[in-house]
C-alpha cells in the first residue's frame, strides 16, 4: 500500500525499499519488545530499543547532512548545532513537564533556575509547557538559524573550506554560549531528569517503543523528502550548483538560494532528529554542540556514501553500532578505529559503501549497454538509461 503510493510519486525502487524497511523496523522492534516474552529469542530488550532509537535519530541527522554535503557540496561542520538546538527545544518541553516533581518542587521553574536563585522563568522559556509549541520550535529554531546563517554566508559566496570552518565556528560559539549558566539552559549540566512526555513516563517500555516508532517514521519521512527534493528538477539544479556554481548564475539561477533552501530544510531535519534523540537518551547538554560531534556525523555520511540517500543511513547505523561495540570491548581503541575509518574512507572509499556499490553496478550495466549499442550502431539514439544519475 505504502510502496504503491510512493511509486506513484515517482520514487526509485531502492528508495521505496529503504522506506519500507525502516517502517517495518519501526513496527517490528517495538512489537517484539512489548509483546514477546523476555525469554523469547526474538525479544528485543528495552535498552536495545532505546539504543536503536538513538541510532535512527543519528541516521536522520546524517541524512540531513547528506542533503547539503552530498547534493550541494556544502560540507557543514556544524550540523550538530541544529541537532542540539532541536534537542534543547524538546528538552525545554520535558523540563517544563517535570512540574513540582523536581528536587525543589517549584511548579514553574526547573531545578537549575531555582538553584541559581532566579526569581522568574526567562521569557524564552514561556510556551514550552505546550507540546505543540515545543514542536514548532524544534523546527523553527534550527531552521531560522540555518536560514540567517546561510543567507549571509551563501550570498557572500563563502564556499569550500571557508564555509566549513565558519560552520564549525558557529557550533563552537553556541557550545561556549550554552555552557554559560546565565544563558538559562542549565549550563554545564544541560537539561535532564525528565519525567514524562505527553503524560507518559519517559522510562516506560511502551514510551520507549513509541519513541522508537516515531524515530522510524521521522526517518522515513526524511528519506521521502530528501528523495523528492533531489529527484526533482531542483535536485539537478543542486548538483549543478555544487559542481559549477558560477555557471548556474549565467543561466539565470541563484545558487545561493538553492543552497539556502537545502541548508534550511536540512537544519530542520537535524532539529527533528535532535528532538527525538533527547527523550530517548534522557539528557541534552552543551557537549552536543562540540565541533567533534559534528565532524563525526560527516564520517557516518562519508562511510555510507554521500549523495546516495541510503548511504548516510547505513553509515550512521554501522559506525554507531561499531562505536557501541568498541566502547564495550576495547574502549581505548575506539578513537583509533574512528580515526582510521576517516582516513580509510577518504583514501579508499571516497564514494562510501553505497556509492561504490552503485558505481560497480552502474559500470556493469554500462558495459552491457555499450555492447548493445555497438550492435545497434552508434548513430541511432540509444534508449534512455539512467546511468550514473544520482
Amino acid at each position, binding site marked *: 500500500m505504502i510502496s504503491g503510493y510512493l511509486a506513484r510519486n515517482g520514487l526509485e525502487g531502492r528508495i521505496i525499499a529503504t522506506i519500507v524497511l525502516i517502517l517495518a523496523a519501526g513496527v517490528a522492534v517495538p512489537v517484539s519488545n512489548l509483546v514477546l516474552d523476555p525469554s523469547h529469542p526474538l525479544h528485543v530488550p528495552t535498552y536495545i530499543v532505546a539504543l536503536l532509537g538513538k541510532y535512527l535519530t543519528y541516521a536522520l541527522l546524517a541524512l540531513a547532512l547528506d542533503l547539503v554535503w552530498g547534493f550541494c557540496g556544502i560540507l557543514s561542520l556544524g550540523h550538530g548545532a541544529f541537532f542540539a538546538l532541536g534537542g534543547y527545544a524538546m528538552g525545554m518541553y520535558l523540563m517544563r513537564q517535570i512540574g513540582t516533581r523536581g528536587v525543589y518542587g517549584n511548579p514553574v521553574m526547573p531545578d537549575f533556575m531555582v538553584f541559581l536563585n532566579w526569581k522568574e522563568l526567562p521569557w524564552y522559556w514561556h510556551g514550552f509547557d505546550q507540546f505543540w509549541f515545543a514542536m514548532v520550535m524544534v523546527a523553527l529554531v534550527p531552521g531560522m538559524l540555518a536560514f540567517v546563517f546561510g543567507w549571509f554566508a551563501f550570498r557572500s559566496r563563502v564556499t569550500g573550506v571557508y564555509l566549513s570552518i565558519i560552520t564549525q565556528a558557529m557550533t563552537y560559539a553556541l557550545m561556549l554560549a550554552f555552557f554559560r549558566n546565565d544563558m538559562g539552559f542549565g549550563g554545564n549540566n544541560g537539561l535532564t531528569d525528565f519525567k514524562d512526555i505527553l503524560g507518559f513516563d519517559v522510562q516506560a517500555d511502551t514510551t520507549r517503543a513509541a519513541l522508537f516508532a516515531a524515530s522510524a517514521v521521522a526517518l522515513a519521512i526524511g528519506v521521502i523528502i530528501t528523495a523528492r527534493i533531489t529527484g526533482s528538477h531542483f535536485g539537478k539544479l543542486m548538483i549543478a550548483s555544487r559542481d559549477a556554481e558560477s555557471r548556474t548564475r549565467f543561466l539565470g539561477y541563484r545558487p545561493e538560494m538553492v543552497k539556502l533552501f537545502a541548508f534550511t530544510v536540512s537544519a530542520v531535519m537535524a532539529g527533528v532528529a535532535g528532538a527525538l534523540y533527547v527523550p530517548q537518551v534522557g539528557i541534552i547538554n552543551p557537549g552536543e554542540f562540540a565541533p567533534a560531534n559534528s565532524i563525526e556525523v560527516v564520517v557516518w555520511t562519508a562511510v555510507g556514501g554521500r549523495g546516495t540517500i541510503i548511504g548516510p543511513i547505513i553509515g550512521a547505523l554501522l559506525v554507531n553500532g561499531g562505536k557501541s561495540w568498541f566502547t564495550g570491548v576495547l574502549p581505548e581503541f575506539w*578513537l583509533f578505529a574512528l*580515526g582510521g575509518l576517516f582516513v580509510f574512507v*577518504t583514501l579508499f572509499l571516497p564514494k562510501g559503501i553505497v556509492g561504490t556499490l552503485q558505481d560497480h553496478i552502474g559500470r556493469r550495466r554500462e558495459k552491457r549497454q555499450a555492447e548493445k549499442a555497438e550492435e545497434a550502431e552508434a548513430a541511432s539514439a540509444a534508449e534512455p538509461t539512467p546511468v550514473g544519475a544520482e
Partner: protein
Amino acid sequence: MRLAGPLTFAVAIILSLAGVAHSQEKPLREIVNSFAEARNFNQTEEIVAELGATGDPAVVPVLRALSEGDLHVRKSDNQVFIVSGRGKTLTIIDPLTGEMVGEEGKRALSKIRVNNGLRRLIRDTIGGLALGSPDPAARLRAARTLISNPDASSLPAIEAALEKETDPEVAAGMMRARAAAILVSERPDAEKSEAITAVAAISTQDALSLLLGFRGQATGELREQVDRAIARVERVQSYWAMAQNVWYGLSLGSVLLLAAIGLAITFGVMGVINMAHGEMVMIGAYVTFVVQEIIRTSAPWLFDWSLAIALPLAFLTAGAIGYALERGIIRFLYGRPLETLLATWGVSLILQQAVRTIFGPTNREVGSPSWMSGAFEIGQLTITWNRLYIVLFALAVFAVLLFVLNRTSFGLQMRAVTQNRRMAAAMGIRTPRVDAMTFALGSGVAGLAGVALSQIDNVSPNLGQGYIIDSFMVVVFGGVGNLWGTFVGALTLGIANKFLEPYAGAVLGKILVLVFIILFIQKRPRGLFALKGRAVEA
C-alpha cells in the same frame, strides 16, 4: 652604617631586577645573630641601625619582632629567632625566612630587651629603611615602599634623607614619599595641597587609595583639588589598564600566531586545512616533556637549557610526522580539500589517542627554566617573563618564516605553487616535493609552538584541540598566501579578545569574536589579505 658591603646591594639589585624573589642571607643573618652579643641598649641600637642600613626589606619582620619583644636568643648556640605562642614551649621561627624551625622550651631562650628609645629608633628605621643607604637603587626602593605604606612618623627621616640626596631620580622618589606621608600627617593645608599634586603625579593604585582616603577628611579647596587629582589618577589608571590589555592581547595574539602560522602556510600553499595541526602543537609540548624528563633523571644541571634542547627536537619530530602525513595520505587527496580536512581529522584522533595511550590522559608537568619565571614591571604594567619570551619567540619564528618564504629558493618555489600550481609545475618545480616540505615545515612550526605553549598551558592530549579552532579563525580572518595576514589576524584577534573580556567576560568575549569573524567572512570571503586574480576564482 658602612658595614653592609656594596656587593650585597649589587647582588640584591640584580636579583630583584631579574624578578627573582631572593635575598642574600648570609651577612644579614650574621647581623641578626649579633643581637646575641649585645650587652646593653646602645649596642642593640647599633645593630638596629646596621640592619636598617642594609635596605633589605627582609629585616623588617626582625625589627618588628624586636620592637614587640618577640625576638629571642637560643642560649645553646646564640642563634636569634622570632618566637610565637605562650606557655612553657614556644614556636621558634627563622627571623629572615619566616619559616617555622621547631619548638623550644622557654628556659632555653632569652629575650632581647628593648626600651622606648629603641622602639622609636626601630620605627624610624623601618620607615626610613635604607633611605640613607649608600646605594641609590636601594634608597629609591625604600622611597617606593614608603609611598605604598605612608606613615606620618617617617616624615622626619624622609626629609632628612631628602636633604642629603644627590641623585635626582631618587630625590624625586623621596619627594613623592614625603608627599604621601604628608597626606596622612598633621601638616598645614598648604603643604598638603602641594602633596596632593605630587601624589597625583604618581598615579598608581596606591596613590589613588591614598587620595581617596584623604578625600574623606579634606574640606573646601583642598577637597576640590583632591577630587580633580582623583579624576586625573583614574584617567591615567585607565590608560595603564588599556596598556595592560594591549599587552595581554599581544601575548594571546603571539600564542595564536605561533599556533596558526604553520596552518596558514600549509593552507596557503596546498589549499588544505590540516585538522591535525593542533596535534602537532601537542606533540611539540610532549617533546618538551620528554626532554625535561630525561634531563631530570640524568642531567639536572641542564634544566635551564631544556627548552633550547626541546625546540629543534620538537621541530624535527612534528616536522617528520607532518612529512609522513603528507606522503602517506594527503598527496592522494590532492584537489579534494574537504576530504583532506576529514582525513587529517582522522589522523588527529589517532595522534591524540596514541599520546593518551603512551603518556596517560592526565596533565603532564612541564617545568619552566629559572630564566622564564617571575615578572617585572614597567610603570604600572606587570609583565611576566614567560609571556615576554613567548611574544619574542613568536616574533622570531615569524621573522624566520618570512625570511624563508621571501628570500630562499624553497620559499620562492612555495610562493610559486601558492599562486599557480600548474604553472609552477610546468616550469619544472617539483610540486610534490614542495608540498611535502611545506607540510613538514608547517608541522614543524606547530611543534615549535608546542614547546612555547608547554610553558603556559596544561600539557595533555587535548592541548591541540584548545587551539585549533582559534587557529582556523586566525587563518580565515587573515587570509592566505601572505604571512602578514596571519600576523595581523593573530594580533587583532588576540587584542580584540582581551579588550572584550573585561566587558563581556572571557566566554562571551570569545563568542563575540567568533560571531565577528563569521560576519567578517561575509564581507571578505577570502580574509584580510586575500590572493587576487583569476586563478583564485576558478
